[in-house]
């Protein structure tokens, strides 16, 4: 009854041409019908992970493995990757204002994506665009398609962005902080929309720094810290009993649903170490309250319970 694995990152490692490792070791799975929340403080490498999957980081050296629908993506020619981008997998971004081209109507931009991947006439593409916008809950979709990004509200823009992402029926939708730029009520609506997309059978990878968002939307969660996945598991189990000390800290820091969202974790002082100043042992050691001598050897991410994996010496058998 195990759903098919759609995306599998295995020891993904990403470095600059000067050898600085931006991502140390990212391993995670997304299955069809799953929504995987990727959480971590800002600067931990969430966006880099997403962009690697999309193949949008040409200047960086990636190693390890990215398997999508059983096919290895690392080493793919750009031409082949391009055919996947927007069709097999699609991505939406934090700020829908800047993510759209400001000088063209949103309808034209959605049409463009459809016509990049399928041979359809302008008229057919537009009909699909309008239908999609309608499905995403944009009122009067025909008129909305003719409008420019700055003429729509933030929430409608993000709906249009999602419509564009879904226009070619991708199997995987990656959303990088899709609600961070929106106010709280609109945020809830967009998250509901993402849940519906997941229920329709696509895999969703939702990137956020907010455990609250994960709790509302996701089925699984991967916690990233300083370029490493430190814990992965089903949301309910992780929320009920977080294993990694960092996950525990994140959960204690869930901000109230309304009111300002703090950027730094109130429960633990300090910030994640920069990519060029990572400790040799456990990357979380400088901020960990359980740190002990054997943390000086970096613990691997290992399965400690059915479906739950953690990288911490506390759970070494």
């Amino acid at each position, binding site marked *: 009854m195990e759903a098919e694995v759609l995306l599998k990152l295995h020891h993904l490692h990403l470095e600059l041409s000067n050898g600085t490792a931006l991502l140390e070791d990212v391993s995670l799975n997304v299955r069809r019908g799953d929504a995987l929340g990727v959480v971590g403080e800002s600067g931990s490498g969430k966006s880099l992970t997403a962009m690697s999957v999309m193949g949008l980081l040409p200047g960086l050296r990636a190693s390890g493995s990215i398997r999508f629908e059983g096919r290895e993506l690392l080493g793919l020619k750009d031409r082949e990757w391009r055919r996947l981008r927007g069709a097999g997998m*699609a991505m939406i*971004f934090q700020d829908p204002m800047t993510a759209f081209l400001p000088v063209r109507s949103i309808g034209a931009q959605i049409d463009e994506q459809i016509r990049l991947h399928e041979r359809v006439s302008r008229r057919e593409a537009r009909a699909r665009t309008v239908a999609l916008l309608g499905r995403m809950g944009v009122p009067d979709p025909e008129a909305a398609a003719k409008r420019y990004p700055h003429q729509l509200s933030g929430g409608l823009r993000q709906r249009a962005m999602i419509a564009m992402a879904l226009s070619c029926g991708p199997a995987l939708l990656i959303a990088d902080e899709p609600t961070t730029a929106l106010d709280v009520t609109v945020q809830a609506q967009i998250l509901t929309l993402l849940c519906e997309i997941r229920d329709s059978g696509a895999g969703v990878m939702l990137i956020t720094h907010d455990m609250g968002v994960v709790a509302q939307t996701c089925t699984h969660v991967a916690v990233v810290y300083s370029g490493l996945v430190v814990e992965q598991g089903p949301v309910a189990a992780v929320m009920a009993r977080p294993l990694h000390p960092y996950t525990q800290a994140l959960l204690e820091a869930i901000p109230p649903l309304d009111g300002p969202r703090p950027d730094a974790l109130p429960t633990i002082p300090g910030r994640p170490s920069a990519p060029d100043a990572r400790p040799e042992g456990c990357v979380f050691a400088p901020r960990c309250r359980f740190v002990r001598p054997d943390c000086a050897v970096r613990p691997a991410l290992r399965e400690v319970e059915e479906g739950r994996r953690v990288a911490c010496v506390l759970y070494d058998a």
Partner: protein
Amino acid sequence: MIRGFASRTGQMLLVIFGISVLVFAIFFATPGADPTARIAGRGASPQVVARIRAEYGFDRPLPVQYLKMMEKLFISRDLTSFVNHGQPVVPEVLQAAPVTLSLVLWAAFFWVSGSLVFGIASAVLRDSWVDRLLMVLGLVGLSIPVFWLGEVVNLVTQSRWHDTLLFRWVPPLGYVPFSQSPFGWAKALFLPSLTLAVAFIGLYARVLRSELLTAMGEDSIRTARAKGAGPVRVWLWHGLRLSWLSYVSLFGLDFAQLLGGGALLTEVVFALPGVGRLTYQALATLDLPLIMATVMYAAVFVVVANALVDGLYALLDPRIREGRHGG
């Protein structure tokens, strides 16, 4: 819309009026510019001077003289030169205009195509040796004085190597009207317009390169890539679309400025009887009617071009269309 148009037109007229008053005032404030003495010539008798004064109206108050001159320039269009007695200046400017227009059109063709190729190439190949070479060349082109370059071109193609296969086709200096021989017209303008275009190619390629590179860092370009658009499409369709705003406005202003007589040095060096050369003559002989006519002609072009550029801006960027200038 109509109100905006009306206020725009009013502004334009005001600017042109201001310029004309300024030119007039500067002329009469210039020492040694007294037109009576110049027209009468050295050592003319007081009677002759008095007669000329009355004939040309120099004895009347300056505002009256100004109005008279404007009337003759714009309404009866029979303003005559102070230097070449009785020569009407308006037809002279109108005759010179097609020469300048031809020169500037050719130059614009060269500098737009040249700067597009060089600008896009060095942006795409940024920090490679091609980019560095192109940018150094651009800087060189930008800093070569156009009259010097023109003289060198003339030296090489008219005398030094004129008899070689490469330059045998080069016609003697001067202009050939399109109506007389389209091919001769193109031949006569090829080297002058290329010379004029060199500095602009350098400048515009640099502007385009930096604008393109800024645009390529925008979120919307990342979105275009994420949609599956290929590099050609991303650079030329999305990238240019974001970056050509300042390019277009720069172009509009330079184009107008050249049409108005800004190609003066090129026209003088290549003996093209255009508006620039006319301005040069008028200034050299301190011929107020001709100065006024050429300056007014230039002012009209620059002011109209400004309005056109603003209109084009609105056409290219919907955010400006709604008056949300700069966000």
